């Protein structure tokens, strides 16, 4: 009962602020509305007993990525004005793309028979995630690390050239 109520509240928070993200005329408000969206998703992770993922979600997505987005907006010329309004000419295309994606996802969700996973949930998920990274998922882990490293070096190269 409580879980259902929590799920509904979190979903409403997530969805309502997501609508503001795409609908707001003010770009800073859009970026700030990302925060309740991401917090709602973190709450959903907690409902799924993935508290480590939830913590990292807040730390990375809210503490780093959203701040970075805000930072970039505020450093650009027109982002600083509170009166600045943005226009989106691709509303129709965006709605269509979102609708197609939603239909596809729902088809997949309802078409799959969700078997309950074997075994019980581990009490602490952080060590389990860590050992998965360093055993069965090591290739993905290393490749991702390399991609990030290359992106980092690319950013440095671009920033250097401008000087």
């Amino acid at each position: 009962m409580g879980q259902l109520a929590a799920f509904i509240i979190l979903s409403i928070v997530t969805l309502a602020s997501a609508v503001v993200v795409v609908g707001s005329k003010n770009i800073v408000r859009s970026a700030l509305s990302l925060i309740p969206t991401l917090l709602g998703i973190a709450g959903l992770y907690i409902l799924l007993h993935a508290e480590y993922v939830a913590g990292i979600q807040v730390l990375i997505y809210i503490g780093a990525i959203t701040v970075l987005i805000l930072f970039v907006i505020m450093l650009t010329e027109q982002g600083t004005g509170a009166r600045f309004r943005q226009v989106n000419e691709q509303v129709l295309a965006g709605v269509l793309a979102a609708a197609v994606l939603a239909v596809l996802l729902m088809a997949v969700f309802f078409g799959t028979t969700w078997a309950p996973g074997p075994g019980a949930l581990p009490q602490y998920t952080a060590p389990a995630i860590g050992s998965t990274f360093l055993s069965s998922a090591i290739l993905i882990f290393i490749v991702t690390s390399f991609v990030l490293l290359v992106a980092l070096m690319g950013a440095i190269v671009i920033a250097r050239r401008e000087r």
Partner: protein
Amino acid sequence: MVNWPLEIVKAGLLAVVIFTFMAIVGAMFGVLLERKVGGWIQARLGPKHVGPQGLLQTVADTVKLLQKEHITPRAADVAIFNTAPLIVAVAGLMSWIVIPFGTLGDRVLIVRDLNIGIVFFAAMGSVTVIGILAGGWASNNKYSLLGGLRSASQMISYELPLAMALIAVAMEAGTLSTVGIVNAQEGWLGSFAFRQFPAFVIFLISATAEVNRVPFDLPEAESELVAGYFSEYTGMRFALFQLGEYGEMFAMAAMTTTLFLGGWRGPLLPPLVWFLLKMYAVVFFLMWVRWTYPRFRLDQLLNLSWKVLLPAGLVWILITGYRITF
């Protein structure tokens, strides 16, 4: 099965308790202590007139702030302008959830011993940036915006070394829970201040930067930015920013105590007293630094983080890993 209504009532009551604790012990007493310590270091007297030895000075200041008018600048973005101080204050409040204050019999005095304790703490610290950035932008004032931007670049830069120090401690203790970390520190030599000395230094420096205190107070910089991101805030909203800031500072001191100084552990005195003693010692250290050092330049600040603290943190994680494994 979780008893939901009971849990919600408990959470509400605990929020009131922590908020009161943070407002009285953190902000009100903290401000008084700051002025007294500052006065003592600079060979002045500090507040002296209101109450015995100026003890009631902050009470008078709080009453004054409560009475002041809320001014919203005409060009400001009203909704964001009003929300920003709340974000800062609530994030400062939330950090206290994972701090163990001591023991009472067999129970540990902590709001909730989360098994992701220090990740949660770091996450709440990073949410504060949003409030500062939003407040700086919504004021629609160039000094506020500059303060907000400086604060964002500074806090992002110092979150990384802070996280490195947290990772090293978590590796040594083998847990992310704050109670587990305190339990992993036995005796004087077992405290992580000795076993994790480099992490301790990195954590202290980054914590000072995270709470925007001198020598890392560029986001506020009274002499150049007229208080930075909260220039336009008046009355209780200004007080909420101050509350969040002092709450953060005391939370950082409490976290330093928990992670490195053995938390509530100590001989003779009750655990709660030990915890408060250690926490105030760290707070005193932060104030001592504030009244001793001048402000950094922005490039010095970023260089210290990216070129010194971050590599040092990475090397220390490597050394810790080696020590644990072999």
